[in-house]
Structure formats: structure tokens, C-alpha cells
């Protein structure tokens, strides 16, 4: 806050000078900080509140720190199947009644599962705060799934797999990439799991999973919107406080060994056009190197001015579509870039060019203009990604569950703005080494038989 006109003028002049320099980061508009509170109940449930009275609605999310990386061999897809079962009834709520209650009050409810966490959420008019807390507590406290509901829901999940993966061109792209890139860590398999493992899942597995992972000490409740924190805390204590703490949650997840030599794969998939992939193992989300890696990925592949789009799609037209991603999640994952190759173009040439674009990050620093653009893109995503109460809850819960540090929900903005061109080159040199590289060429082939559907086997 500047009250003195002279110092204001100096600040403006300073900003102008900076904007002529290499990195005019001071001109970047800042989003407001989150004014949250955080509590932990005696049973271990972490509770985050953020009051936002702009619209009379509330968003409640419950994150369970369990995802597909916690799945054991032979049970891939189980974390996600279990997410479905959480809608199949508890002591005071019949099967499918939870979502039907939410819609009848004009609300929205859904759930999702990824490698690291399972998220249940609802957005409802503000007066229904007691109902949503009660519903979430009822299924955490007293899930009861009948055998016929279990079997029927398993079929639904198998349909989901067919719909997302097996029956769509390129639906199995991630499955191919991660299966080849990983040897040991469960990131090798996709969250949806294999058909074979889904078939093998039993009602007995449900109970074990529930007792191990669906305990208050493995859950984070985030409430954002138009509510009174004191009243909400009383309700949370009333409904969730009575659920006993569970045993410590096992975290015995095998580590991925460091690759020792470049790996090349050629596979066939029943897709219309070939695709090529180049990738490297990287570090986890929250690690200091994650921020320059994120910037690096933006320079390579965010938007029409990114290097991969300009080179592969626009200028050389070696690819119909091309993109890259630094998958920064809880455990070390991958940076990878993909190109879909039009007819008449060589996959070999495209793979060479794609690799050259990625590896160029090592040989020369990115330009100041590229860095500035990436930071501005980041600021844009950061600001536009905090518009709704659902988005706000997502950032808060992510900071608590994945970073184990709620301050990162705000603090990351500065970490990103501090990244330098040297940082970006350094992380490229650290992670994009010849011995850790993997290259995949996917050629069009005949349709798989349903029995082969999968590839997530471990």
C-alpha cells in the first residue's frame, strides 16, 4: 500500500524500467490470497475452511489419500471401483440415494480417482450444509454394499473402461506410454485398471480396502463458500467426530529404479494414424525442480506459440497434433511428448524432430521472451483456475494432501515467478539424459480381441 505520491511515482518508474529488462515479472497481476483456516479433529480428520460469501452456495470435498498407486498386483482399477461403491449405500442412505438427494436440492455431486487420491465432492445451495456433511459422514462411518450392487457396479466400471479406453481411437495412449516407461512403480498401470483385474475383484476386497484407507486419519475435508466457520466446525465435529481413528495407513509403494540405458519400443494399436512418443522420468510435484519443469513444459507445448506446436504442426507439418506434459504428481513421474503423424509422413522423422525439440532445452537456454510468456500463461491459469469455489477447494486440498503443506496453495505463485532461464536449462540437463530416455512408435494394427484388452497388468 503506497500513500506517498512520490513513492508511488517511483514505483511506477521502477515497473517501467523492469518491463524493458529481460524479465518484467513485477508487472504480473497477482491473485488474492486464500484466507483459510485449518484444524485436525482428534480422530485425524484434517479440516480446511475458506469462507467466500460472494454467492450463496457451498462446495464440500472429501479427499481420501488413496489412489491407483496404492493398488496391489492383480487388483489394478480397484481404487476407482471403490469410489463407485461409495455411492451404493450406508447405514442411513440407500444405494444411489446420495446423488439423488443432491440433485433434488439443485446441487451437483461427483467423484474422481487418480493415481494419488480419491475425491468426493458436492456443490449445493448454502442452506444444505448440514445435509452434505451428514451424507459424507454416513458413508465414511457406515458403508454397506450388497453383493448384487457390487457386481452390477463392477459391470458399470467395465463399461467405463470400454468407453474411455478400448473403444476409442487413442483411448489407450496413456496405457501404452506408462506401461512402457515404468517397470516397478504402480504408476505403470492406469487408474481404470485392466479388465482382468476388474473381473477378479471381489466383495471381500471391498471390506479390506475400506478398513485400510477409508478412515478419518486418511481424509481431508475442505469446505469453501457461504457458511459460518464456527457453525460448520460444530457440525463437522458432530457428524465426523464420532468416527474412530483407523490404523496408520500403509505407504509401502515400490520405487522405480533409475533407467540405465535408452529404451525403444514399437507397438501396434488399432488406431487410424501412427503416433510417436519421447519421454524422460522426472521428479515429483512439490520438489524445487518441479517449478522449472512446469515452465519448461509450457514453453514446449502450451498454445500455438509453443515450440512443439510451431515446429511439428505449423511449420514442418510433421504432425497432425502434438503436445507434451510434465506429469508432476505425488511420486516422481514423467515428462513426455506425443505427436500423431499424418498419412505420408515418416514416424522416424517425426520422432527425431520431437526428440530434438525436447533435447534443445538442454543445449541452449530458453529466451527471456519465452520465460515471460510461460510465466504469464502460468499466472493466467492460476487466476482463471481459482474462479469457482470448487476450484478453490481443489487447490487447498491438493496442497494439504499431496504437498502436506497448505501454504503451497498460495505460495506456489511466487515460486513460479522466481524461475529463471538457467533453472529451466538446469532441469532439462538433469532429467533429459540419454540413458533415461524412452521412445515409442505406435503403428496402426488390427483390432485387439476383448480378451487382450488391458495392458495394465503388473
Amino acid at each position: 500500500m503506497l500513500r506517498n505520491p512520490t513513492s508511488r511515482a517511483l514505483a511506477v518508474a521502477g515497473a517501467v524500467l523492469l518491463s524493458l529488462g529481460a524479465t518484467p515479472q513485477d508487472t504480473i497481476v497477482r491473485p488474492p490470497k486464500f484466507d483459510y483456516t485449518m484444524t485436525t479433529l482428534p480422530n485425524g480428520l484434517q479440516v480446511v475452511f475458506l469462507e467466500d460469501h460472494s454467492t450463496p452456495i457451498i462446495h464440500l470435498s472429501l479427499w481420501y489419500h488413496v489412489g491407483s498407486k496404492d493398488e496391489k498386483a492383480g487388483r489394478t482399477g480397484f481404487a476407482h471401483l471403490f469410489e463407485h461403491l461409495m455411492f451404493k449405500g450406508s447405514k442411513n442412505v440407500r444405494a444411489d440415494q446420495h446423488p439423488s438427494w443432491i440433485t433434488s436440492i439443485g446441487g451437483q455431486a461427483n467423484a474422481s480417482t487418480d493415481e494419488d487420491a480419491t475425491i468426493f465432492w458436492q456443490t449445493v445451495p448454502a442452506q444444505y450444509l448440514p445435509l452434505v456433511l451428514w451424507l459424507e459422514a454416513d458413508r465414511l462411518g457406515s458403508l454397506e454394499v450388497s453383493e448384487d450392487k457390487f457386481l452390477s457396479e463392477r459391470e458399470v466400471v467395465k463399461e467405463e473402461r470400454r468407453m474411455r479406453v478400448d473403444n476409442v481411437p487413442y483411448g489407450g495412449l496413456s496405457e501404452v506410454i506408462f506401461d512402457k516407461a515404468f517397470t516397478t512403480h504402480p504408476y505403470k498401470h492406469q487408474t481404470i485398471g485392466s479388465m482382468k483385474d476388474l473381473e477378479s475383484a471381489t466383495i471381500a476386497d471391498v471390506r479390506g480396502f475400506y478398513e485400510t484407507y477409508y478412515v478419518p486419519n486418511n481424509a481431508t475435508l475442505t469446505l469453501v463458500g457461504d457458511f459460518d466457520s464456527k457453525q460448520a466446525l460444530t457440525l463437522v465435529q458432530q457428524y465426523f467426530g464420532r468416527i474412530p481413528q483407523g490404523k496408520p495407513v500403509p505407504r509401502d509403494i515400490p520405487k522405480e529404479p533409475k533407467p540405465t540405458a535408452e529404451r525403444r519400443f514399437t507397438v501396434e494399436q488399432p488406431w487410424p494414424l501412427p503416433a510417436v512418443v519421447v519421454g524422460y522420468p522426472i521428479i515429483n510435484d512439490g520438489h524445487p525442480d518441479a517449478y522449472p519443469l512446469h515452465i519448461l513444459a509450457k514453453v514446449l507445448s502450451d498454445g500455438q506459440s509453443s515450440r512443439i506446436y510451431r515446429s511439428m504442426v505449423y511449420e514442418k507439418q510433421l504432425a497432425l497434433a502434438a503436445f507434451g506434459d510434465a506429469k508432476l504428481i505425488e511420486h516422481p513421474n514423467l515428462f513426455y511428448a506425443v505427436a500423431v503423424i499424418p498419412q505420408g509422413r515418416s514416424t522416424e522423422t517425426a520422432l527425431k524432430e520431437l526428440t530434438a525439440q525436447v533435447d534443445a532445452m538442454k543445449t541452449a537456454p530458453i529466451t527471456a521472451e519465452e520465460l515471460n510468456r510461460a510465466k504469464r500463461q502460468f499466472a493466467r491459469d492460476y487466476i482463471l483456475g481459482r474462479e469457482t469455489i470448487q476450484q478453490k477447494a481443489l487447490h487447498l486440498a491438493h496442497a494439504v494432501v499431496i504437498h502436506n503443506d497448505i501454504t503451497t496453495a498460495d505460495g506456489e505463485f511466487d515460486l513460479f515467478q522466481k524461475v529463471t532461464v538457467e533453472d529451466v536449462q538446469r532441469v532439462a540437463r538433469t532429467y533429459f539424459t540419454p540413458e533415461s530416455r524412452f521412445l515409442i512408435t505406435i503403428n496402426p494394427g488390427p483390432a485387439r480381441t476383448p480378451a487382450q484388452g488391458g495392458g495394465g497388468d503388473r
Partner: protein
Amino acid sequence: MSLRIVVALLVVGAGASGMAQVRQWPTETPPRPLQAPRVNFPDYKLKTLPNGLQVLAVSQNEQPAVSFRLLIRAGAAQDTSAKPGVASFVAALLDQGTATRSAEVIANTIESAGGILAVGAANEVTFINGAIVKDQVALALDVASEVARRPAFAAAEIRRQMDQAIQGLQVSAEDPEYIANALIDRLVFGFHPYGRPGPNSVDAIQRITRDDLVAFHRNWFVPNNALLAIVGDLTHEEAFAAAEKAFGSWAKADVPVMTFDEPPPPTRRLVVVDRPGAVQTEVRVGQIAVSRTHKEYVPIDMALRILGGEGANRLFGVLRSDRGLTYGASANFRAYKFGGSFIAETDTRSETTGEVLRLTVDEFFRIQKEPVDSRELRGAQDYMSGNFPLAIETPSAIAMQVLNQLFFGLSLDELETYREEVTTVSVADIQRVARQFLFPDRLSIVLVGDASTFVGQLKAMGFDQFERIPIAQLDLSAPNLRKAGGDRRD
């Protein structure tokens, strides 16, 4: 990957065996709601510039960003029947170079400023949408204005877009969801512009010339044929001033008048697109419907919601909750300016295709034959009225609702009165509109899947007549839906 559960609606009692309760838990009933606040539609302001451009401003300063949306009242429906695809190429080329900025400069300018710009064409509109951090609004609107008014349509960029579209045909021709959607529209609307397939062959794409693009742009891209919304962290006055600065000099011009042929009468037709090896069948069941401005829109919309929309969804209950036959099922009322469609959509494993089709069609009959349960109706009504505060959370969501009313020429009062109007619909109204506007015996049906696994079931399920077309032979622009001259592939 994020895997989602769709909301389930019908309730079925739990079976006897299963997972026993493992924790002590009391028996209780759900708590009562707190005091409900009164909610009004948020403030917005409208202004028409001297050149006829209608501008909407919504001010909300929660995040330091501004979004904008320019809608041109012309899309695929304004294509001529000889040259489908002109509207989509015009849209795709808007940001690929203007009189003063190359494609590269446009992308770099917007992205370096912390913005995002998207262009596209739908049935009756072309849009230029954007969002930007608040200190760069003037720059972003300047780019948007130039993109809307002075696209270069450079030969090299046209070539590049066409090459990409031609390559893309190969992917979409094998995408069962794309095929099912395009084919059901084609069956329901015939060759009416709403059902006309886009440029779906190399020939059709290559027939389009630069002159076609320039003419389409000249005819329709005028300020008196456009709507602009500027929303977010700026005042109404700032929004209008920014609109005036960027678009005020855009010259007004006459807009052509177009008349459309009537869509064909509803006709029973079942088309099986054979995709050998498919593990799942895409199912679409549809028919022609009324326009958005029809006076019975509200009860018709409610009937479709009970059949397959949020707040009720019989199809979801029957196909997913009761039988585990699918992941998702819905019925949608797509209402345009001059007509609309009712389309039910789902997918299922190959071996249950016949069963799913029968169950889906039966629901079209049932909503006509039997009065809906008053609880089902109330569920749909409660959803529609209760959802109101959720639908006004962001300035963009508020703007979309206002733009919709303006686009269709509907009263802005409805933004406030809609909630009450919904609650006046009765069980008898639902049955009356279902009988008047649904034609369960004359539905268009599309099945895209491995025909060998399910055509044998169709007769027993009451579908004895169908056309079977190998996927490689499908031609949406041919009356018989087949490519001329055998097994040629584009």
C-alpha cells in the same frame, strides 16, 4: 486421468448379502436445512453501440481477470448446401492471420500477455472467446476485434487448415462416438442445415475456395449481427468504453435473409454401422423437436429431463443403476432457432446392444403412455429451481444466460421468473406435451458397433428392419448413406 461418476437418480433397495457393517453407527434421518437466503439474478448492463453491436457487461472483481465472448449470429446453418464447411473454415482461420498480424504474432501477443483466445463455429453461431489478466484487457480486445473484422484468409493458412481437416477425417471416420452423433443428426434433420454433415470428404473440403470464405465473412461478420459480452474485474462503464474503443469503428451493414427448408417428417429408420472388433456399441435414439422459442418449451424440456436429464433421468436408472448395462445414459433436448431434436444416447458392451436399445425405446413410449410420478416431476422441478444459485456463480456463467436470452430474442425477465415458471408445470402437462411432441413409433436409431455380435438380437427385440453399412462405406452426404463406387476410401 480423472474418472468420474455420473449422478444416479433412481433408488433401489439393497440386497441381503454383501459387505456387513463394520463400524458402530446410529440410525438417523438427515438434518434439516438452514435458513435459505433470497437469491436474485445478479446485476448486468446492456448497451447497443451506434453500429448495432449489442454489448453486455457483468462486473465481478473476485479474481483479477476479464473474460469476453463475441458471438456472430451465423454458423454451419448459414453454409450453402453445395459447400458445407465454409463456416467452420472461416472460424478456424480467424486467428490464423489478419491484415496486420500473422498467425504467429496473434498467438504470441495473446499468450505473452497472459491470455487465451479460442475461435469456433457451431450450428448457428461463430464465437471468438477469450480470457486475460485484467491489466491486458485493451490489448486482448484489440486482437479480438482485428480477428473478427480483418482476417487475412491467406492462401498458405487456408492450405494448412484444409490439410489438417483432411488428415482429421481419417481419425473421425473411425471414431464411433463422432460417427454416431453425426449420423443421428443426419437422420433426424435430413438435409436441413441442422443435420447436414460437415465437409466429410477430401472433395468436399477442396471444393471450398478463398472467395467462399471471404464472402461468408463479408455477409455475416457485421456488428449489427453480433453480441459481445465483457465480464469480470472491471466496471460496467469500463467494459462499455473498452467495447467502444475496440469495436466502435466496425461498420454496420445489411445482413442477408435466409430461409430454410422444413426438416423431413419423423420416420422410423434404424441404421447399423458395422465396426468389426468393436467392444462396445454406441446407441443413439432420436427425433425432430421444436425450437427454443416454442411456447411449450418449459414443459417439453421438463419431460426430456425426466426421460434423461439432470434431476430425474429414467434412462440412467433403468440402464445403469438397475442393470449395470452402461456407464452413462442421457436424453437431450437441443433447441435451436428454427427447430430442435430429442436425442437419447448411451453405450453398452456389444452383447447387450439389443437389450439396451429395447429399454431405451420403451422409455420414449412409457413417458407418453403413463403419467409421470409426481415425485419424479418434483425432483426435476426442484433441481431446476434449486440449481439457480449454482448457475450464477461466475461472471461468465451469468453472461451466458443473458446472451442466450438475447440470441433467441427471449424476454430478459425470464432470467428472474424462470424458477417460478418451472414449478407450475403439472403431471398432466408432461403427459400432454409427451403425447403431442414425442413419436416413439417413428424414431431414428443409430447403432455403431460390431454388427455380427448383435444384429441377430434385433428382430427378437422388435426391430426387424434395419440397414447395415460397413463403417468404411458410410457417406453421410449420400441419401442412402453409402459411398458410391464400392470400397473406395478417401
